[in-house]
């Protein structure tokens, strides 16, 4: 296998399905991407687009009704690749948390309410790794301090004694327990208030800079992505429809859906802007429309979009890919965004 030490995670053509009464839900359809060391990739999309399913599939924690029907997930440590889909249950345990930890959406529900924080940390350490109790304690205190909590107080507290922001920080500290290379964060700031959200965002940015793990964060919130991401991938109906550097995605989006999202979200400061909504609703993933899954809602759709599904292809540069036949026309409508960027970039140069 080739050396991919700088790329701790690669995903190739991943498909995930849910078997439900009404049929088969194709929740993730042919997703490929890779995550570089020290990089943060934001996976943005609306509810039901498959982003959480994808995240959970990466550590193989899918519910019983779900099945990975195709694809490859590989974690790389040095020259060694770990093929996640072929791991047995026991190997999986060692791999989860050690190679890749996940912080789940609701910090309020992620803890066992009758256990002290220390017991939960110890449980996690026991389940996944070979540290002694003392080592775990020392590491836990260190990490709690690192996430700006009072370690002595927090470690013996019950979850209900901590605020939402504190719990989120404990979860982050716990996820770092075994020094994973990859951290998956599912809506890390969604349930939090503005000022708390700000402290978590600043903390995540610091962690990333100082520890240098790769971060995949799943969010429906464009603002969090704009804050934290180096790269952004837009998901729609189970597929990545556009992926690129954060500036490309926000200032020269090439997919109509990405553009639609950007046009639908106001900035807080600055003058009033008119917003444009995306008509229609996301498709039924049991019986999705033929061709491009976005075509029923897309103002740029042509006959071709109705019959043929566009593939993710590079655009502008090696790092920016988009799955759309009408990129040129979409681009013509982003001139105002490009101007906005030019203004900032110009300001920077001075």
């Amino acid at each position, binding site marked *: 296998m080739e050396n991919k030490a700088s790329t701790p995670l690669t995903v190739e053509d991943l498909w995930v399905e849910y078997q439900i009464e009404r049929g088969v839900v194709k929740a993730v359809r042919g997703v490929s991407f890779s995550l570089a060391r020290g990089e943060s990739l934001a996976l943005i999309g*609306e*509810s039901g687009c498959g982003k959480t399913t994808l995240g959970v599939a990466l550590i193989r924690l899918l519910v019983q009704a779900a099945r990975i029907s195709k694809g490859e997930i590989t974690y790389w440590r040095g020259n060694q690749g770990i093929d996640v889909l072929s791991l047995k249950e026991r190997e999986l345990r060692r791999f989860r948390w050690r190679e890749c930890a996940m912080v789940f959406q609701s910090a309020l529900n992620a803890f066992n309410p009758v256990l002290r924080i220390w017991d939960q940390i110890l449980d996690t350490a026991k389940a996944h790794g070979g540290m002694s109790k003392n080592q775990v304690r020392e590491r836990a205190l260190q990490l709690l301090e690192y996430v700006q909590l009072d370690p002595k107080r927090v470690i013996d507290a019950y979850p209900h004694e901590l*605020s939402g*922001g504190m719990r989120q920080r404990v979860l982050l500290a716990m996820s770092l327990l075994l020094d994973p290379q990859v951290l998956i964060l599912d809506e890390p700031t969604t349930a939090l*208030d*503005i*000022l*708390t*959200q*700000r*402290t978590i*965002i600043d903390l995540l940015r610091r962690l990333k800079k100082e520890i240098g793990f790769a971060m995949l964060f799943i969010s*429906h*919130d*464009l*603002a*969090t992505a*704009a*804050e934290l991401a180096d790269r952004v991938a837009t998901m729609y109906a189970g597929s990545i429809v556009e992926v690129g550097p*954060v*500036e490309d995605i*926000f200032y020269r989006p090439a997919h109509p859906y990405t553009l*639609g*999202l*950007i046009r*639908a*979200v*106001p*900035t*807080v*400061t*600055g003058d*009033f802007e008119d*917003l*444009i*909504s*995306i*008509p229609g*609703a*996301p498709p039924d993933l049991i019986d999705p429309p033929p061709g491009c899954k976005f075509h029923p809602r897309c103002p740029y759709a042509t006959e071709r979009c109705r019959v043929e599904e566009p593939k993710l292809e590079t655009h502008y540069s090696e790092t920016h890919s988009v799955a759309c036949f009408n990129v040129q026309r979409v681009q013509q409508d982003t001139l105002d965004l490009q101007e*906005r*960027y030019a203004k*900032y*970039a110009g300001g920077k140069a001075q």
Partner: protein
Amino acid sequence: MNAGSGEYLIGARNLVRMFGSRRERVTAVEDVSFGIREGEVVCLVGESGCGKTTTGKMIAGLLKPTTGQVFYAGKSVWNPRGDRGEDFKKFRLGVQIIHQDPYASLNPSHTIYQIMSAPLLHHKLVANTHEALDRVIELLTTVGLSPVEDFLYKYPHQLSGGQRQRVSVARALTVNPRVIVADEAVSMVDVSIRVGLLNMMADLKRNLGVTYLFITHDLAVAKFFAWEGHIAVMYVGSIVEFASTPQLINNPLHPYSKALLAAVPEADPELTRSKARVELRSQDIPSLLALPSGCRFHPRCPYFEPGLCDVKRPELLPIGENRYVACHVAAREAGAVS
């Protein structure tokens, strides 16, 4: 603000609401006063637990204030003994509320037609079921649920979150309200659907003259929906700043408003990463059971002046045309006299 004057369609004067037992009481809303003119939007913004929903429920008549008054069309809603005033029914019909969770606020065992026709028939706003059906069709069209036939006989679970929220709005409209209290009405709706919903609600203002009390934690949504109206920022039970939306967004005066605006992430990478920060002295939100003395914000406030802010509670003082701030320092700088 004299909320009881004819100038305002609906308003609050010194509203207080406490919860709990005699032994342990919390004051969820503490001395809130404001007024909304007919056809105007006032946004209540603030973090969870600041009392914005409690205030909204009092304005809609769903909660009785512990003390203080709610005024509707110049009259007090509760009479001096704390009973329902003579025009209470008119008030309740005139002020409707839209709740946050469209999954919980529609009866799951009733069809959309049943949900919508019940208030029409109950209040005898229509003569018979034929008229009710016509009116339901008209209202569903107003809120953009067309073709109407696709929705009339569906159950709430068959609709998406955005569609349900439209039904909630349509249901509120059945009784021809003059005021709608929208409590986080778009928070649970996806981004791509949200703007459509907000635009539809703004059309009701334009076309039917609906007045809104719009409650949200999302400053971007407040800005978009209330650009021509006002924003009231709440902190631990009180309004700390009241200003026209452009003023509040671009020139906030209260340190808490400043902190919020500086902290909120923007959907624009360059803008959000270059924003100036406001450093607070503490991250802890005070417990309602142990409120700080003086100004409730003083333990966190960067402007904190010992001997003043921790002793004396700032009043909401007028500092300009329909603009108010409750901060000793900001009011002094703006030249207000208490």
